[in-house]
């Protein structure tokens, strides 16, 4: 979706406010939102792409007004309700109307498992022997698509030409994976290098480059 989250190339968002000696959290509720989000993920009801879409798919005025952890909170409430883990009424009341189903009890993240779970991380690669559509050094163009669903091809590179600089290997294709179970398909991800002037015109520095990680599904061979 072409949403407010797709910020590359926007003007008017103000100066960068780099706080000196910034604490990790500014409010206790930020700690809780981080922890609740990570712990709820253990239920296995969504993947990272579904959760990214839950956060970005807010009315743009709200997305822009919300802080980072406010957006995480919006996303978490949405994920919990859409996955059926809790009901909207339960969120409104702050009280549980039904216990956790038995089959989910074993999934609950325990303190003693935290270190191992974080250290292991997630698995975004696909072992399938999927051939690469493009070779390193090959000129490519980003498809000028404007899907209403989640996509990891930012709007500022759509229709633009670059060169494949590195093949990162086969990863789950985020745009499809965001649609839910059964959409886990593997594609090569490339670091595609764009001249700054290709993206932003002649006022950009001629030497500067922007590298964007893109999947096979985002690309076509550049017109010659």
């Amino acid at each position: 979706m072409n949403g407010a989250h797709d910020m590359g190339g926007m003007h008017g968002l103000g100066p960068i406010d780099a706080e000196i000696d910034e604490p990790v959290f500014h409010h206790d509720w930020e700690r809780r939102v981080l922890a609740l989000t990570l712990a709820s993920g253990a239920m296995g009801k969504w993947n990272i792409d579904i959760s990214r879409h839950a956060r970005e798919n807010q009315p743009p005025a709200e997305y822009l007004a919300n802080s980072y952890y406010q957006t995480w909170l919006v996303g978490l409430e949405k994920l919990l309700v859409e996955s059926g883990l809790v009901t909207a009424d339960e969120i409104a009341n702050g009280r549980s109307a039904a216990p956790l189903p038995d089959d989910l009890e074993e999934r609950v993240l325990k303190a003693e498992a935290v270190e191992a779970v974080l250290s292991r991380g997630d698995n975004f690669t696909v072992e399938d022997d999927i051939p690469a559509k493009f070779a390193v050094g090959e000129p490519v163009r980003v498809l000028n698509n404007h899907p209403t669903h989640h996509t990891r091809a930012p709007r500022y590179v759509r229709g633009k030409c670059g060169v494949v600089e590195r093949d990162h290997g086969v990863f789950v294709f985020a745009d499809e994976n965001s649609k839910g179970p059964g959409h886990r398909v593997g594609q090569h991800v490339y670091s595609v290098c764009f001249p700054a002037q290709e993206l932003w015109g002649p006022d950009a520095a001629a030497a500067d480059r922007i590298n964007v990680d893109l999947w096979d599904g985002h690309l076509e061979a550049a017109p010659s």
Partner: protein
Amino acid sequence: MSDSEDHSDPNHSHLSDTDLRVRSLESLLLEKGMVDADALEALIQTYEHKVGPQNGARVVARAWSEPDYKDWLLRDATAAIADMGYHGRQGEHMYVVENTGEVHNLVVCTLCSCYPWPVLGLPPTWYKSAPYRSRAVMDPRGVLREFGTEIGADVAVRVWDSTAELRYLVLPERPEGTEGMSQEELAALVGRNSMIGVEKVASPNGGAAR
């Protein structure tokens, strides 16, 4: 340019509302048995106190000190960083980009706020904010200037937009005046901002890195 009002500062608005909303959600999930209070505490402790840019600084110091390690880091960052004990969530696939006299690297995530947690911890607010995300790809030299970092016209700026599951760490240039320093001493010079690429590592003879 902004004539903003109170409600336009997202970090300081509706705090009590949000606070209440989070408390309510936490008590709901605890009551339901979906989350465990001790696990929540362990998650918070991990990211508030254990994981942070000191990890990335040790990686940088080692790369500055051991040429073989640097080669490995640039060739297979995930394995080389795991060798230091840093791996896992939001650092499953690492790529290290090296600053040189010819190129200066800068990392951003324009679409959300992807960031290499195992080596840098959780991202600072400015990294997650609209001003940085919007301008880093279009006006990187202007952004660098806001951090006091001037990049010469003879040096190319290379911006890395973290749109997939690769996470980027900048290997800054080793500053002058650090010959003979131990890895521990070197690591103490390397600030978070230099590993995102918005600053250089200052020489110990000059100012300090942030």
